[in-house]
């Protein structure tokens, strides 16, 4: 079975065979023989060439966040076919870039922009209060505010689209 794993914007193809704890993976031109056990929810024990690794895999908005040793990676894993379809139809992906979704549930305490405003990277878009903290959400890049879907005082859930930017 073939997958595409995307790390830091770099996609790479990974082929997997095997089952029941013993797998063979091909990535980066190399073949890896892996003895993998799920020892607890999301905690994998991997033996690769007699080297022992413990990797924690957490699903976060459809991406895998993997902690191994003192390193953390955010990895998007898709079946190869799905990856090809998604990247062909790039426009949709492009638009997805233009939405600011709530990264966590909370209360909007301040909205700093309105439709029509132009923003630069680092500009405060709004402030969301959660877990006794006021969290400023700022623009990651330049753009024009197309739509503001929330107002101060409103409670939002994780994933709610807050602001759309052209």
């Amino acid at each position, binding site marked *: 079975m073939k997958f595409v794993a995307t790390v830091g914007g770099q996609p790479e193809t990974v082929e997997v065979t095997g089952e029941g704890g013993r797998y063979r993976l091909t990535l980066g031109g190399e073949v890896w023989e892996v003895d993998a056990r799920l020892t607890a929810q999301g905690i994998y024990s991997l033996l690769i060439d007699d080297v022992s690794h413990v990797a924690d895999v957490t699903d976060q*908005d*459809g*991406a895998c966040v993997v902690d191994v040793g003192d390193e953390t990676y955010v990895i998007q894993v898709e079946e190869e076919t799905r990856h090809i379809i998604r990247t062909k139809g790039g426009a949709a992906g492009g638009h997805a870039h233009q939405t600011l979704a709530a990264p966590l549930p909370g209360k909007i305490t301040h909205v700093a922009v309105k439709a029509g405003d132009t923003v630069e990277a680092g500009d405060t878009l709004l402030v969301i209060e959660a877990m006794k903290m006021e969290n400023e959400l700022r623009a990651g890049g330049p753009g024009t505010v197309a739509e503001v879907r929330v107002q101060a005082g409103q409670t939002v859930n994780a994933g709610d689209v807050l602001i759309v930017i052209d």
Partner: protein
Amino acid sequence: MTARRIAKVLVANRGEIAVRVIRACREQGFASVAVFSEADREALHVQMADEAYLIGPPPASESYLAIDKLVAVAKKAGADAVHPGYGFLAENAAFAEACVAAGLTFVGPPPAAIRAMGDKTAARRIARDLKVPMVPGTVEPVASDAAARQAAREVGYPLMVKAALGGGGKGMRLVRQEAELDAALRMARNEAAAAFGDGGVYIERYLPEPRHIEVQVLADAHGHVVHLGERECSIQRRHQKLVEESPSPFVDAPMRARMGDAACRLAQAGGYVNAGTVEFLVDADRNFYFLEMNTRLQVEHPVTEMVTGIDLVREQLRIAAGEPLGYAQADVGWRGAAIECRINAEDPFNGWLPSPGTITGLRAATGPWVRDDSGVYEGYTVPRFYDTLLAKLIVWGADRAAAIDRMARALAEYKVVGVRTTIPALIRIVKHPDFCAGRLSTGFLDRIMPALRAAEGRRRSVAVIAAVLAEYERLGRRTIVAPPAPTSDAWRWSHPRGWRRA
């Protein structure tokens, strides 16, 4: 004063500190009474207490900050004492008064001492009178934005806006220039009001990269005061402590004696009784400036416990019962070094954004000289209404180097799956050459933040293998493939880098 009998203690708090107090009660043979909001039925402190009472809806203002409800539960349960923990009402004199008025023993200082020392501005007036050096700034809360601007000009920029009540870094903002003042005042007042039920703030000069060093004091009701040495708490993010240790690598015996003496004099002048902490800022020349006194148990109290062998919560309850300390300053001894790391549900790779959710997998560090003061368990859902602290990981070592090695080992063992935590950042901190060399300052973390970004490390291939196998096994079990979540790209937009500039 006369001894007060304590047999049943209401713990007016939640999370790890409620668990900590309940444990101390159990060890001393006291019954414990927990309180919980509708969001906390499955919280660990509810399970560990002997009794547990629902006190209201999730927002703290309707539950953990509701003085009347707490006092009513204490009476209904037949408790004879109330332990406030830290945060919430721990430094609220009105709560202490309400307990006393209801015939309950408040496990903490008398209301007058909370007012005198707990109010940062009042404490600064006492320190001024005792000639204890302190950071320049206002000794009164600022009445209005206009008054704040005026005071700010006198103090000079950059400056700090701070909540007059409370602590724990909430209601604090750094202001570099006047343009940022209004926003800082608003956010500081909001946070202070939400956290402590009082929006009063004051202004203080900003010291660049100071060390944050605090002294633990114990005062009984018979006039005895001792200090248990210092804790260094310089590793902070969002002005909140992340790593604490005792002793401080920066403090030698004479300096410890000087700071301890100043702390004891402040406590005595404020008529202080029970456990308290005097916080100082220390500059590169070892000058220390009084910052504030926390009239409660500190989050980081365990590091003092590990080096002195003194159980601070046990002492709090003994003192509240009217018992004398039973030992003098000369009897207090220190052995080895202790470090505490705070494990919070926050994403260090995303501006410390809070990360509520369900802990689907948990394996805490254990073993030699490792202490886990935790408020969570596997399967527990971290609610979005309260602060992000999940657990405190404390280690002891024969010396600081041994403690650091042990902490690195323990952090690597500590597995939390389902929510993001501060653990990856903590691992980098304790392995950082500046930390190992004791070169600490409150600016340390901001300096090393860039290094916190997920690296192209040597375990990249292992991480990819784990992620792909997880998906491979998931597909094996399921017929429908979950679509890629549409919001995943939004992350790129939601880095609140602002905290780094704050």
